[in-house]
């Protein structure tokens, strides 16, 4: 099906290039399956993710529990399936919030220039003076553990990436002739920013969104691993790895599968984001 479409070249060039990229296709298919898994977790998961079954403590993979059981006899597969919800909710919310804040501030900075630009860009400089995860650790220590606080902390860390990219786009676009034309025709600044600058900056924003969902999922897992993320017994992949380390030498399945889940998910988003960048604009330096 795909190959027939690709051969016919009936598709827009961007879609055509994406379909030709095997890595991107793998990434996309995996992401679709993962989203479906998260939505239909109630129907797919074989067991209750928080139901303890002490006799099955650390049971190795078997027919009844395909990926084995954890230290409280909970089914690892079911916990992974429910854990995908946390990863996806955090990943998408963080990126949505930081894309909106970053794009607004970035386009305002690039379009107006001058003092506004300087203030916004200094703010960006300050935020990127912290290694991302370290700032998130500090914020989480102050706010306390919860899924909402993880989203707040990671969004605060992540928005400057969008602001920088959109500012550069806004600088370029605002020099173009049709913006001058719109100005002459009496378009308001707000209209120009929302109807011209932001829509025309969408390709790099889209690439950054995809790549940063991967980053946010990894960052959430890292915070949860450090005990700064989502509260137990809520099944987060990162905290599953954190617990699994205590049984590293007796029951490796408890640590291996959640780590693999994080790895493959982040890989899928990175492969898709990479393909998207190559298809939209190979010159993008993201």
């Amino acid at each position, binding site marked *: 099906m795909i190959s027939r479409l690709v051969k016919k070249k009936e598709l827009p060039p961007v879609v055509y290039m994406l379909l030709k990229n095997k890595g991107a296709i793998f990434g996309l298919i995996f992401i679709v399956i993962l989203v479906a898994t998260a939505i239909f977790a109630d129907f797919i998961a074989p067991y209750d993710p928080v139901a303890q079954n002490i006799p099955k403590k650390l049971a190795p993979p078997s027919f009844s529990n395909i990926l084995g059981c954890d230290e409280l006899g909970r089914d690892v597969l079911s916990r992974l399936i429910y854990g995908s919800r946390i990863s996806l909710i955090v990943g998408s919310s963080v990126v949505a919030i930081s894309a909106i804040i970053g794009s607004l501030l970035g386009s305002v900075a690039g379009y107006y220039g001058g003092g506004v630009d300087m203030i916004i860009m200094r703010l960006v400089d300050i935020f990127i003076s912290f290694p991302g995860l370290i700032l998130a*650790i500090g914020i*989480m*220590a102050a706010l306390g553990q919860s899924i909402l606080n993880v989203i707040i902390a990671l969004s605060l860390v992540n928005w400057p990436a969008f602001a920088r990219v959109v500012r550069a786009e806004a600088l370029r676009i605002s020099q173009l002739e049709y913006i001058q034309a719109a100005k002459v025709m009496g378009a308001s600044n707000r209209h120009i920013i929302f109807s011209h600058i932001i829509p025309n900056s969408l390709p790099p924003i889209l690439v950054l969104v995809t790549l940063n969902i991967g980053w946010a999922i*990894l960052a959430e897992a*890292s915070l949860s*691993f450090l005990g700064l993320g989502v509260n137990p017994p809520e099944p987060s992949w990162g905290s599953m790895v954190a617990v699994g380390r205590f049984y590293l030498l007796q029951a490796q399945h408890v*640590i291996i599968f959640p780590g693999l889940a994080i790895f493959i998910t982040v*890989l899928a988003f*990175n492969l898709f984001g*990479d393909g998207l960048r190559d298809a939209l604009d190979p010159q993008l330096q993201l």
Partner: protein
Amino acid sequence: MLGYIFRRFILVIPSIIGVTLIAFAIMKATPGDPVLVMLGAGYAEPGSPETIALQRTKLGLDQPVYLQYFSFLWRLLRGDLGQSIYSGRPVIAEIGEALPKTILLTITSMGIAIAIGIIAGIFAAIKQYSVFDNLSMIGSIAAASLPSFWLGFIIMLVFGYYLNLFPLSGYGTPAHLVLPSLTLGIAGSGLIARITRSSMLEVIRKDFIRATQAKGVPELKILFRHALRNAAIPIVTVVGNSFGNLIAGTFLVEVVFAWPGMGRLAVQAVSQRNYPIVYGSVLVVALLFIVINLVVDILYAYIDPRIQFARRQEISK
């Protein structure tokens, strides 16, 4: 060059002030009364209202927020980051013990990342579209997607437990350094491999490389002496930019391998609610990161004088 360095120094000041502001804001946002936390550490009864009020005045907590910020800055300038609630020792002393260990781990990891990244990148470039090229490029994305804390446990299990080559965890001998550095090195090598490959691909097609080949210069010498040198600037940029990720990575990997650096200190402090240590560590790491970026920037200008000119224009805009 001196002028450039000076201007670059000036630009650092707002960042430093901003970082201290954010650290101060995080401290203020922490719920709970710091006096009660300090007095109440280990006691059921925190103290009489008089003691609490006295302590509050002593810490300057009864003053307006902006004055508190200035006294925070003033103490910071004298290297006073407060005291560890847990041990009662000055925070700066605890950080002073941990920081060199983190720096050591960062340097060895960076060395491994550069070695793996550059070698894989060069061979991927000279054998473009070969199996090795495809594998190493898939590997480079995979390396960037790996949760380093999980990779650490897998490496620990394989090299420390099954093969029994290196100590599982801890600190002391050079052998203890191998597994954590390898973990961070692998995680950091992906980006370096990719940029080395693309930069080398550009260079090895140039005429001067063909000229050296025609002269009969040995292949390895061409690669390392001529091609790599000319491909170096983008690689140095990426290496410089990866320091941030690497320092963040040490926070995770130190916990995995029980390496007594900043990461382990900070993470332990978080679980003990030892806030002065947490904020002190975040602040010190951010300041360190600013210094590293400054050094890297000055290095670029030294390697490639064109950068001075471009940055100068950027700054004057």
